[in-house]
């Protein structure tokens, strides 16, 4: 339980707060301010995971988001998060983590045998084998590969936490709160700009957290920012991507540092940030050096070891060596030495440098002109083999349990590149930095992410960037106090790889070695994009942050070209992996789309309706009653009520548009295939609308309310598209027409009262209107009062029965429905749902969405007579194309199962002499002539009326003989609707 490697003081952990946690079932203790990684190191835990392919033992390699090795399964049960980087997981009391990707224990993983097979399973080996016999791929080889591959295990259980999306706007967004970012935010804030400062870490300061001597500036700057009302500081917020036009996405980890989110608190929040100007102060990632055994637990980036010592007060080893190619890395050795770690050797390929001399003065053993060309140890580092630059021979070994390495720093250019900045090779830093471009005045990089290292320089660079960003956003520049501090030299000696026996990794997570890169080159995969894909280099969860450029350099050497001309693969989102739930936000599951309810929703609920989805609407499918044996029994009962007595149905979901203006009639004549200018006021007419390509778009009834005022109805599904279609043509094709459109779908609730007794019911509730057939014939419309409230009565029918539609302002819908139901009691009224509505219209032969499916013409549907012969309308011209007037196109027919007991289904195909000649669009059971009936589209359909064909449904093993009928089987003369 003791934190053997914890220093007695120093850093940004709160030693008074002791937090218990477990790793692989063992209990440990850490402190507030720790990450899981720092707490593990404090307890001397070195082995934390296994690599992707060879299952080699791996330890903590970094101290940040770039971690390739220390990936764990965090938390348990439904909250298990695989592949969580221990280096950024904030410690909390009760945290539990488990190592991943091993079979057997972490200590003894028998998959490690893969390492012995390495000569045969190098880059791309799988493309060249596993081909014989063909069937073995799915059955043998692939399951084997899949089991071995992958990293952590998903819980497989629904995530119990919730997430939310949020939106922000600012004048200046600063990404990263190191010295540069803090200064940028302060400068922009001082100028008066609205500033957002986003920092992925839970503490602000970046590298300043490792420099106690500058902590005063850090605290003072943070206090200054907090005092500015227009500056918003967002810690634990990682900007994951830059999108067009100053839009960036970020994830705020609201509750990941807690055992679980408090009530009403999301686990994470997904921010869309719109910024007028952006300052990227994203810092830099230290890179590895490829040498044999560079992956052994105990090998760690030098800057990380320094961070563990300085920020977390943790010695990452007892005896350390430093292998570095530049001066700045020496601070790791000084930090560890201060912490009491013995520095066994500093290995540096250079002959001399200022840091080297300082180290010598401090009594540290410096081996100039040297390299590490091997490591000793198994599951933990025991020693480092030191050779001389340019010599292949192995040198002597010094004992060490920590090897700190640094091959230089890669500016974190991910966001800059994503938002369009070109990258330029910097010969001094041996790294790519963003090209400064004039046109991106709204965005600039500052500090280490453009190669400006060190506290003083980065702060000055940040302040300049923040000032310029504020100016770009329209504010006057303001100055802020700047510190004066010297910077260590970050310019490295060009050493990418130390060649020797053994695996030298360039991608330490995916087990890609320098030899793999050379193999790819030998096989012609010499372009960085090809080499990456062939070897999987830089495709792991760290996306090549620590080794990507090293692999490119190895490739460059193989190609005999400079690294600059090899380049890097394209930067894409995300800067680091992001939680799926966070990106999804809150509109998921039950709230994936809003539920649209009619004003009668509560009425249907009380009636026990079975609901169905119609787009985003909920509609009653049917209303089960005691005695109904199944759903069909309810549907048929409801339909029979309509055929024999009277029924009432909620039709509020139909789209309703008021078209008004001097040119309204002209407009409707152009958008409908039939004519409306001849319609009398107070009358309705069925209309057919085509798309420009001549295919049927929509249908519905339109009423003329006044000379210049029409009430158009659309189908439920097409209400939105029809409105946009009308608006588009008014704006683009006929801007001269004086017409206005108002959607009144929500204003009016509507119900259909249908059946032989419909008039009796309607007469009982309607006031001030003679509803006799003479006074109010088929297709008549009038405003009236129903049960004391305003209403509009339509005599229209979809069921084929005498029917009326009552529309009423939505707030009165329940009142009117109840009045209708009461008035209907003597006549045996029943509410009917969408299923019965469908049954009735199929019996009658009316087409609906299944037939108007975007593939059928008016001719196909037997509606050719509706196309006006004279005058323009949308779809007229292209409907005349030969393919759409072809006589052999499938035509609407009715269908009846020969055996009334045998079901036919929509989706079955119609076979004539074994040939596929059409399909069934709608099917139901008839109530007027019991048996299964349907509508379908059949080649030569009209000619086949009366013949017997096959409804084939091979998916369900059905072949049902059917008789082809006229689609208009029920009351073909239309007498019932007119009575």
């Amino acid at each position: 339980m003791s934190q053997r490697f914890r220093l007695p003081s120093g850093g940004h952990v709160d030693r008074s707060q002791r937090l218990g946690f477990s790793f692989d079932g063992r209990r440990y203790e850490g402190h507030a301010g720790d990450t899981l990684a720092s707490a593990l190191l404090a307890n001397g835990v070195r082995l934390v995971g296994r690599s992707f392919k060879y299952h080699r033992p791996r330890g903590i390699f970094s101290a940040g988001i770039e971690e390739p090795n220390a990936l764990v399964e965090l938390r348990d049960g439904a909250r298990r998060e695989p592949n969580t980087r221990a280096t950024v997981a904030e410690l909390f009391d009760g945290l539990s983590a488990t190592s991943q990707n091993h079979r057997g224990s972490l200590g003894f993983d028998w998959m490690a045998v893969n390492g012995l097979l390495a000569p045969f399973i190098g880059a791309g080996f799988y493309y060249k084998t596993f081909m014989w016999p063909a069937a073995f791929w799915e059955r043998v080889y692939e399951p084997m590969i899949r089991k071995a591959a992958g990293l952590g295990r998903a819980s497989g259980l629904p995530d119990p936490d919730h997430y939310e999306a949020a939106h922000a706007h600012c004048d200046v967004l600063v990404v990263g709160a190191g010295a540069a970012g803090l200064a940028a935010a302060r400068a922009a804030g001082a100028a008066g700009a609205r500033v957002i400062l986003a920092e992925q870490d839970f503490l602000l300061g970046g590298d300043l957290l490792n420099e106690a001597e500058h902590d005063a500036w850090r605290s003072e700057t943070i206090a200054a920012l907090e005092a500015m009302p227009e500056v918003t500081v967002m810690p634990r917020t990682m900007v994951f991507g830059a999108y067009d036009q100053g839009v960036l996405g970020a994830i705020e980890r609201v509750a990941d540092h807690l055992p679980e989110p408090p009530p009403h608190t999301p686990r994470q929040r997904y921010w869309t940030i719109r910024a007028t100007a952006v300052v990227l102060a994203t810092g830099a990632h230290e890179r590895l050096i490829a040498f044999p055994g560079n992956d052994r637990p105990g090998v760690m980036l030098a800057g990380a070891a320094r961070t563990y010592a300085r920020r977390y007060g943790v010695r990452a080893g007892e005896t350390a060596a430093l292998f570095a190619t530049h001066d700045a890395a020496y601070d790791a050795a000084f930090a560890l030495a201060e912490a009491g770690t013995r520095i066994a050797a500093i290995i540096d390929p250079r002959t001399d440098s200022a840091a080297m001399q300082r180290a010598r003065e401090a009594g540290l053993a410096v081996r100039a002109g040297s390299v590490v060309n091997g490591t000793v140890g198994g599951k933990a580092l025991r020693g480092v083999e030191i050779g001389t630059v340019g010599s292949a021979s192995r040198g002597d070994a010094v004992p060490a349990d920590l090897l700190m390495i640094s091959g230089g720093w890669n500016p974190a250019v991910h966001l800059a590149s994503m938002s369009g900045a070109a990258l330029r090779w910097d010969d001094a830093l041996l790294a790519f930095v963003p090209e400064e471009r004039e046109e991106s005045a709204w965005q600039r990089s500052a500090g280490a992410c453009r190669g400006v290292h060190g506290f003083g320089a980065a702060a000055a660079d940040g302040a300049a960037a923040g000032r310029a960003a504020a100016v770009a956003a329209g504010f006057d520049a303001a100055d802020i106090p700047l510190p004066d501090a010297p910077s260590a030299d970050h310019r490295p000696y060009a050493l990418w790889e130390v060649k020797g026996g053994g695996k030298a990794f360039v991608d330490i997570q995916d087990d890609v070695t320098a030899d793999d890169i050379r193999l790819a080159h030998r096989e012609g995969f010499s372009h960085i994009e090809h080499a990456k894909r062939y070897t999987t280099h830089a495709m792991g969860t760290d996306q090549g942050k620590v080794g990507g450029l090293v692999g490119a350099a190895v490739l460059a050497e193989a190609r005999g070209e400079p690294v600059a001309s090899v380049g890097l693969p394209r930067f894409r989102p995300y800067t680091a992996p992001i939680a799926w739930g966070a990106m999804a936000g809150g509109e998921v599951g039950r709230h994936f789309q809003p539920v649209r309810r009619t004003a009668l929703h509560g009425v249907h609920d009380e009636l026990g309706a079975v609901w169905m989805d119609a787009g985003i609407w909920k509609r009653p499918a049917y209303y089960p009653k005691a005695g109904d044996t199944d759903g069909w029994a309810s549907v048929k009962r409801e339909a029979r009520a309509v055929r024999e007595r009277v029924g009432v149905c909620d039709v509020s979901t139909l789209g309703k548009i008021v078209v008004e203006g001097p040119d309204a009639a002209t407009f409707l004549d152009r958008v409908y295939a039939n004519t409306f200018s001849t319609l009398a006021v107070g009358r309705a007419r069925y209309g057919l609308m085509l798309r420009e390509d001549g295919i049927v778009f929509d249908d519905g009834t339109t009423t003329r309310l006044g000379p210049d005022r029409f009430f158009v109805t659309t189908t439920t599904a097409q209400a939105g598209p029809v409105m946009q279609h009308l608006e588009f043509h008014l704006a683009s094709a006929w801007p001269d027409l004086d017409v206005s459109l108002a959607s009144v779908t929500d204003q009016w609730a509507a119900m259909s009262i249908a059946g032989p007794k419909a008039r009796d019911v309607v007469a009982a509730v309607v006031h001030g209107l003679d509803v006799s057939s003479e006074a109010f014939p088929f297709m008549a419309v009038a405003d009236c009062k129903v049960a004391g409230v305003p209403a509009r009565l339509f005599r229209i029918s979809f069921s084929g029965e005498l029917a009326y539609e009552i529309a009423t302002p939505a707030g009165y819908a329940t009142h009117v429905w109840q009045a209708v139901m009461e008035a209907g009691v003597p006549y045996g009224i029943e509410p009917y749902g969408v299923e019965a509505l469908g049954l009735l219209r199929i019996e009658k032969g009316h087409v609906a969405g299944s037939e108007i499916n975007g593939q059928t013409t008016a001719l196909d549907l037997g509606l050719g007579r509706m196309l006006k012969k004279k005058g323009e309308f949308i779809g007229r011209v292209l409907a005349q194309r030969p393919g759409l007037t072809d006589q052999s196109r499938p035509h609407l027919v009715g269908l009846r199962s020969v055996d009334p007991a045998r079901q036919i289904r929509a989706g079955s195909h119609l076979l004539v002499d074994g040939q596929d000649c059409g399909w069934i669009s709608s099917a139901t059971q008839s109530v007027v002539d019991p048996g299964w009936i349907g509508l379908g589209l059949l080649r030569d359909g009209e000619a086949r009326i009366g013949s017997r064909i096959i409804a084939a449904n091979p998916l369900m093993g059905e072949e049902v003989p059917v008789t082809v009928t006229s689609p208009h089987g029920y009351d073909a003369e239309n007498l019932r609707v007119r009575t």
Partner: protein
Amino acid sequence: MSAPEPIHALAFAPRGSLGAAPAAPLRVSFPARDIVQVMLRRGQDAAFAEAMRGAFGMEPPAPGHTATGQDATAIWIQPGQWLLTAPRGVEGALAARATAAFTGFAAVADQSHGRTTILLSGAAAREALSRGCRLDLHPRAFGPGRAASTPIAQIGCLLHQTDATPSFELTVFSTLAEPFLHWLIEATAPLGVDIA
């Protein structure tokens, strides 16, 4: 038989306090409104403005703005289109007044039942709205007398600010008022909300 009162789209919505209980929780209420959509006829701008002044005592507000007259508020919604809103009165009366005033200059459609208004008020209103509203409502960018239509939680919302508290009236399609309110509750509960 006297005409019944219409049922408000949110008549059965939950009421009470939710979430955290800060000193000054957000307040949500459902004021009953008459709402009329007014659509300018081609070339009648001047005559329409004159009619608006005469009948309602205000100028038609410019894009993105509202205007308040003697007994009604006008909210710009589209080029040449406004919503006239007033506290709930006699059924159809506001539409009738508008029709009488604007015949020949503008078309009128009663939307009193088709739109539902929710009032959100409180210091944290902007923060709550940011959980779904994509607009910049910062005082430098928005304020009392400003209006905008924008989708929130996939639902079209006409939002206008009525005072500097700040208070916002959120007007949505009535058939989507319930899911919209659900979103608003989710957004406000973490900050503490009283629903009246």
